[in-house]
């Protein structure tokens, strides 16, 4: 049978039919090439249109955001600032018993309120709310619409890539077809049967490959996210901006119902689950997002590692952080996450090594910034602060006490005694490093040989009826001072020894875990080598401002080393 086919083939290549058949094939391939040229041109046009739309939307989003920012800046930093200045003056006058002045200032305040819709419902109700709802105003002015445009920009940038790729593939198809056509042409012009067979066969093969490749290319979909999904995502972004995590989750879920592989919506929904402490749901969404093109998103990976840690999946947290650091070893949050998860797993030495690396990284970054006359990002100091809180929290969990924030279940912490001791040690190191990096540009001095007694806090009012001006305060069951509501000034006292005048020191105050830099003190010691020190903290340059209710932590650093901490509570 093979022989018969060969003899027929010989007859074809030697016979009169070869010329007409080859001519016909050439013409047929020319038709196909023209069709591919059309497809190429069409794909190129679609890529051009998508690119143009992406560029347009990107500029429009920027413009919209800028205009929104200008409007919000006026509303908050001018209208509301001036409104609240006159309001403060009115309250102050009222406290002084000057009714007429209070009324004058209130009149001006109310007049200012007429100038911006930000100072009226739904953003502000002066009767019932202390401050206007800036988040709602911002969400409307520069979050929802710009987010929608930015998403369209991303989609169109993706379409541009996809259509451009298809256009380039069609150029490859055309090239193969052109070579095939040339070989057919050559086969038609030469007389040697063997060479004729070679050229014809190769030409047919190339044309076949081009056609199969073309068919496969045309079967590929070009992904496009529907407008309804983008709209729902943008609404979700606005709700997330306002802290409405549950509403945002509903919107992101709606977007994902329309487009299940919408990577940005998966990441955004995961973040909201994370905020709500729904760690298994956050993990599921983050992992899903990783499967939809977000595997190199550093924030996603950082929060995924955090979610695994908080969910008690310490091995997964370690694995995620290691994978992230393989992509970029300079990611400070991932390095800190890795150290924390290793520590909770009882891998003490490895954890120390990671924290050492993280501290070296932070130091290097600050030094590099200073060397180039710049500044390191302020988030670096926040990361170190958060890392310290995480360590303190882990120590508390390892000790079996009630955790300060969310943390891994106590039963998942391996070798809790050693974990607690190491966490406390690393906490001090990181806190000290943070002060050194943020406040002093010099290397920290040696550990100071100072003794500082326990902190004592009292609320102070120079007009108080008691003899020394202190206000009555209480204590909770752990001995923490509870100062009265509307405290205007807090006095910190402690005994000390071993200090030297001129020694640098700093005091930092945290309210519910967040530092208030306006209360920060950093200067040189001038109170002598030993004795009792007293420091005053106040917001009150007049009679109106008081300490907000909350949990306050005060830290004393000497030569950048944390030497004492104390706590007090304002209100219940």
């Amino acid at each position, binding site marked *: 049978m093979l022989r018969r086919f060969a003899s027929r083939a010989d007859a074809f290549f030697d016979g009169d039919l070869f010329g007409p058949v080859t001519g016909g094939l050439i013409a047929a391939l020319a038709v196909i090439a023209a069709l591919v040229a059309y497809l190429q041109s069409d794909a190129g046009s679609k890529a051009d249109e998508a690119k143009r739309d992406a560029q347009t939307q990107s500029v429009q989003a920027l413009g919209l955001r800028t205009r929104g920012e200008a409007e919000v800046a*006026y509303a908050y930093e001018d209208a509301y600032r001036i409104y609240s200045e006159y309001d403060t003056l009115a309250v102050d006058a009222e406290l002084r018993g000057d009714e007429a002045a209070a009324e004058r200032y209130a009149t001006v305040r109310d007049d200012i309120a007429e100038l911006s819709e930000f100072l009226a419902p739904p953003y502000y109700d002066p009767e019932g709310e202390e401050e206007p709802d800036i988040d709602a105003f911002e969400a409307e002015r520069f979050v929802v619409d710009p987010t929608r445009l930015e998403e369209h920009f991303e989609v169109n940038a993706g379409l541009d890539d996809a259509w451009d790729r298809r256009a380039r593939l069609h150029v490859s198809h055309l090239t193969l077809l052109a070579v095939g056509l040339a070989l057919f042409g050559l086969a038609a012009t030469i007389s040697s049967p063997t060479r004729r067979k070679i050229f014809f066969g190769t030409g047919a093969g190339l044309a076949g490959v081009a056609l199969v490749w073309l068919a496969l290319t045309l079967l590929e979909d070009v992904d496009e996210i529907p407008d309804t999904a983008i709209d729902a995502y943008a609404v979700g972004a606005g709700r997330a901006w306002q802290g409405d995590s549950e509403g945002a989750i509903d919107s992101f879920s709606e977007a994902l119902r329309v487009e299940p592989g919408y990577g940005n919506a998966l990441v955004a929904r995961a973040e909201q689950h994370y905020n709500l402490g729904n760690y298994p749901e956050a993990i599921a969404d983050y992992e899903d997002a990783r499967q939809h093109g977000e595997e190199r998103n550093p924030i996603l990976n950082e929060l995924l590692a955090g979610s695994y840690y908080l969910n008690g999946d310490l091995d997964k947290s370690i694995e995620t952080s290691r994978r992230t650091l393989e992509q970029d070893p300079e990611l400070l949050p991932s390095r800190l996450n890795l150290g924390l998860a290793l520590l909770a797993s009882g891998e003490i030495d490895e954890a120390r090594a990671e924290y050492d690396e993280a501290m070296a990284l932070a130091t290097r970054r600050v030094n590099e910034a200073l060397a180039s006359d710049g500044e390191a990002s302020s988030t670096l100091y926040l990361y170190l602060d958060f890392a310290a809180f995480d360590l303190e929290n882990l120590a508390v969990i390892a000790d079996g006490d009630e955790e300060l924030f969310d943390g891994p279940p106590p039963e998942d912490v391996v070798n809790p005694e050693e974990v607690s001791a190491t966490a406390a040690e690393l906490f001090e190191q990181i806190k000290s490093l943070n002060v050194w990096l943020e406040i002093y540009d010099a290397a920290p001095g040696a550990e100071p040989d100072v003794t500082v007694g326990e902190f004592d806090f009292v609320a102070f009012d120079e007009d108080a009826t008691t003899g020394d001006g202190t206000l009555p305060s209480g204590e909770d069951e752990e001995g923490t001072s509870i100062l009265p509501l509307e405290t205007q000034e807090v006095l910190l006292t402690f005994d000390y020894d071993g200090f030297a005048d001129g020694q640098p020191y700093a005091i930092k105050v945290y309210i519910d875990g967040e530092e208030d830099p306006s209360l920060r003190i950093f200067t040189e010691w001038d109170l002598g080598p030993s004795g009792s020190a007293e420091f005053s903290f106040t917001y009150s340059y007049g009679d109106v401002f008081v300490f907000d209710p909350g949990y306050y932590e005060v830290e004393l650093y000497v030569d950048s080393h944390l030497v004492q901490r104390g706590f007090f509570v304002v209100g219940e």
Partner: protein
Amino acid sequence: MPEDPRPDTNSDEFFKTSVAALIAVVAVVGAIIVWRGALADEEADNGDFAGLTANVNNEEAQGLNTSLAYQHYRAFTDFSGHAVLADALFDDSGAASDPDDAEALDAASRAEYDLASNSQFFFDNRYLTDDGYDVDREIDELYAEDLEADDLNPVPHFEDADDARDRSSYLIALLVLLAGALLCLTLAESINRNAEYLMAFLGVAFLVASIVGIFVAESRY
């Protein structure tokens, strides 16, 4: 006596020559289509560029106008605070029973009026209204001025670009028709007898359709 084959040979030769000429015409028309398509592509690129430029101009104008108008509105807010307080102080000074108080209130009122006057230099009085300052009108007027001076509307450019792009695609699609003409004419050259005329006719039909298509493309888009 056998028939003289020459007339048939001549007719065949004429047919073949005609088909060859038609193939050459197909090639020329193909070149024209590619040329017009390339021009349309360039036109589309230019339209896109002009549209993007207008878009950037538009956003820049709106951004700067908003910023400027809110600077003015900021000054007006200061003005308004000082003016209302000055009025209130003035009213209270008139109602004060103690002459010292009245004098102090009057002095404070004049100071506030001065501050209000100072703020007045920093906004445009044209936009003052009965109950405040029409910042939206200022933004709109500034934009109208920009519209007179600059091209701020990208839409017509993008529409032109889309038309040119459609024309280019349409012209490239005509190449398929033209390739069909080439196929038919090639077959007319190589196949036997009666079918060759049918193929030649189809080839000519495709060719004519392509030429008509070029005119349609050029007139419609």
